[in-house]
């Protein structure tokens, strides 16, 4: 045997989608050695050593030959260790170390996975993106690390062969002991296992804030909580994913795909059934929020896609970082552009922000005395820019509950009960906005407000009086109506009455108290 050639199909990841990569292995006589070409990055180039050891440890040989491995298309950068497995299989085939079983077409089977030196196969990032892209290319057979199997179990019409060791792959390809394809799992089954991380019944007291959270969830409104340290802002925010409507299959695919690319998926976990909750620290940079890095990774706004982005200590965030949130809040999508990469990530999330009422945190607290001067308080609040506040419909103060009240309070409503009411309100909204491209009240623009928000005459008079008496700003006007629309939806009433407007006015704390 002097010259031999083998071809194996694999996939690389760019942005949220995969792209096919042909792994070509050419083996010839000459000075022994191995070269990988086709713009490999360091981790791909190192696969040479892993593959070598894995093959030897799987009981096969590496004859001393001159080997060239090409990853086509040759003009796209390849990164990550997921090409280990296809390279190993290509080598074995080119060197005549395996006899492919009859009827097996390696160019129609997608292979990817990282190899350990002992031949074990490790899970990789972006498996879901690869499988979805493969399915879009009309491919059906995928051999992938067992650690990635659950994450792709819900993709329809695919034969998934999960593998643990290189030897299993060889046996499967040779036909000595074929692996049965993994049973497909229905998304509904996954969802039944769902358990909210924090249940609302664990939140004691906080009647006002609970109600505000329910309204926010029902209308998809962004929310700002103002309260002293320890008043339970974070706890309340954590409850939000549990009272939002469950993730639909499509939403789950989108979110899991982003998590998979970012390598944030729990090992061995399947599709995400819980809405994501991202709480970046206030030292977060623009790149970490929006996405970036040399290879344009998704940022927190995309990880929070279809879920909740919680920014605690809002005024402490870097000004530029906060300003960068405006575009994803508006468009629900971010485009991350770097020299070598450009990627578009979905980022439609609910923003929940928390902040102290003043620098020391105890302005208006019953627990401790505030030591801040009025100027200090104003300077602190001014850290949050008007344009960002403009995108937050609900602002609510969180009362700090004294210890004795926490103990005495009777059991509170559970997340499931609240989620039921929220789902009903969302259903009303879905029917109302059918065919308009929006699906919840928060997305309504001013024209929409005129069309869908009919105010009763008393409500109108009251809104006007309220604006005069309580010094509300004009930007608050439309927000109050939008929130009132949601409150009416929660009550199941088609028209916005006086009580709805009155309640909605309570959710503009900053307008008429701190911001003078």
């Amino acid at each position: 045997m002097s010259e031999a050639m083998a071809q194996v199909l694999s996939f690389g990841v760019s942005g949220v989608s995969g792209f096919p990569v042909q792994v070509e292995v050419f083996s010839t006589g000459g000075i022994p050695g191995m070269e990988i070409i086709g713009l490999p990055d360091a981790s791909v180039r190192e696969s040479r050593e892993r593959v070598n050891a894995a093959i030897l440890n799987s009981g096969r040989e590496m004859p001393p030959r001159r080997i060239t491995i090409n990853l086509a298309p040759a003009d796209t950068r390849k990164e990550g260790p997921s090409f280990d497995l296809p390279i190993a299989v290509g080598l074995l085939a080119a060197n005549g170390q395996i006899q492919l079983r009859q009827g097996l077409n390696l160019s129609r089977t997608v292979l990817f996975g990282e190899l350990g030196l002992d031949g074990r196969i490790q899970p990789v990032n972006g498996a879901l993106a690869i499988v979805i892209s493969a399915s879009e290319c009309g491919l059906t057979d995928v051999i992938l690390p067992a650690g990635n199997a659950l994450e792709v179990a819900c993709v329809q019409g695919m034969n998934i062969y999960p593998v643990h060791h290189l030897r299993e792959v060889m046996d499967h390809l040779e036909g000595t002991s074929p692996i049965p394809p993994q049973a497909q799992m229905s998304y509904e089954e996954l969802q039944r296992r769902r358990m909210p991380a924090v249940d609302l019944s664990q939140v004691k007291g906080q009647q006002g804030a609970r109600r505000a959270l329910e309204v926010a969830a029902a209308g998809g409104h962004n929310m700002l909580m103002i309260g002293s340290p320890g008043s339970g802002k974070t706890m309340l925010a954590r409850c939000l994913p549990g009272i939002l409507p469950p993730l639909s299959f499509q939403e789950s695919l989108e979110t899991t795909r982003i998590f998979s690319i970012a390598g944030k998926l729990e090992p061995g976990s399947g599709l995400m059934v819980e809405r994501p909750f991202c709480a970046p620290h206030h030292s977060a940079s623009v790149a970490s929020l929006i996405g970036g890095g040399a290879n344009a990774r998704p940022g927190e706004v995309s990880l929070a896609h279809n879920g909740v982005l919680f920014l605690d200590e809002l005024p402490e965030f870097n000004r530029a970082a906060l300003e960068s949130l405006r575009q994803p809040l508006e468009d629900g999508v971010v485009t991350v552009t770097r020299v070598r990469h450009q990627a578009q990530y979905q980022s439609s999330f609910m923003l929940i922000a928390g902040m102290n009422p003043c620098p020391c945190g105890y302005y208006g607290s019953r627990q401790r005395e505030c030591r801040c001067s009025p100027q200090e308080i104003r300077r602190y609040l001014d850290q949050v820019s008007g344009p960002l506040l403009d995108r937050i419909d609900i602002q609510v103060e969180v009362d700090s509950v004294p210890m004795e009240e926490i103990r005495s309070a009777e059991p509170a409503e559970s997340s499931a009960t609240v989620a039921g009411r929220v789902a009903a309100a969302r259903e009303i909204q879905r029917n109302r906005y059918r065919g308009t491209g929006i699906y919840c009240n928060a997305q309504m623009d001013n024209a929409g407000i005129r069309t869908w928000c009919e105010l009763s005459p008393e409500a109108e008079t009251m809104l006007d009086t309220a604006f005069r008496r309580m010094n509300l700003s004009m930007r608050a006007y439309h927000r109050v109506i939008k929130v009132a629309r949601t409150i009416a939806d929660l009550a199941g009433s088609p028209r916005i009455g006086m009580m709805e407007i009155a309640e909605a006015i309570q959710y503009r704390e900053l307008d008429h108290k701190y911001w003078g």
Partner: protein
Amino acid sequence: MNRNQKISLAWLSSAGIPADTLQHLLAEEPDPEQLLARFRREGERPFREEIPQSALRLLTNHAEKGMLETWGRMIDRFDINAVTCTEDPYPSRLRGMPEAPAILFYQGTLSALDQPTVSMVGSRNASTKGTEACRKIAEELSRNGIAVISGLAYGIDAAAHQGCLKGKSPTIAVLGCGLDQEYPADHAGLRRQIIERGGLVLSEYTPGEKPLGWHFPWRNRIISGLGDCLAVMEARIRSGSMTTVQHALNQGKDIFVYPGEPGSLRSEGNHQLLREGAIYFTCAADLMEDMNWLDKTAEVEQNTVLRAEDRPDASPAEKQVLLALDRGELSFDQLCEKLNMNAALLSATLSMMQISGLIRALPGKRYEKIQG
């Protein structure tokens, strides 16, 4: 007093000459314009004995035309008046006071001081309760024909002026900087109102003088000096308010102290003063009784507590809330629990009551009834 005289007074006050020296000078020559003319004509000679060298140098420098014109422009632009201790309109309460300023600059009218006066002092960083109480008491005093004096600072000072403006009496602000300075800038509107409503803004500092830190405790002696008595609303142990109390004691004024919250740092000074024998007061009537002012007005006009039954037009939910708030402020959660009302209904009810002026929202999601 004509423009040139005012300019001459600005010149005279700008050199840091001690008040008693200035008094001697003005007693010999009451017309400041003549003093300036003489200084220019004869040089330093007529002044030499009394005035320190450094001040003489400043007088020489400031006597040049450009400087005098700057003062002239400030006086025109900000409508600044001046009065010296040798003149009749000079506030009688300051006569004979130790370290009384010889020259005062003012905006508004000096006749604002022609009635009983109370100086109200307290922290810039005051509690909501303290500022509210101050506003209320100042208003009651004002309704009963008593003028309120304070320092135009944030917190208690501002509340005292605002409360007084709600009544019928004028209010007087004593500044720690030249009258051309807008300090604090946020109170430009309040200051305009004080003057429009027949009040007085005065300062011993030459126009153009910056609001330097040490000016303020020093001008406090004028605040206490102009009042018939001193009312302390909220004072920490080490604070400007406590220096005002020192000045007032030296001037032989009565000290009235509002009881603050026990244990609160903000009113530690109040409690110390009360222990040392200051007069306890919680309302305008207390103060007026002790000052023997009650005979001057037939009846003390007081704010009355609004009771739930006085509001027949209130809805059942609103009446419940009013009743619950009778004994003082409550937070949203406390109301929720007390009335067993759901959060949505309570929110709506509270909004309506805020709009109709029955209650007021306090920071920390607490609510209180509006008095009167």
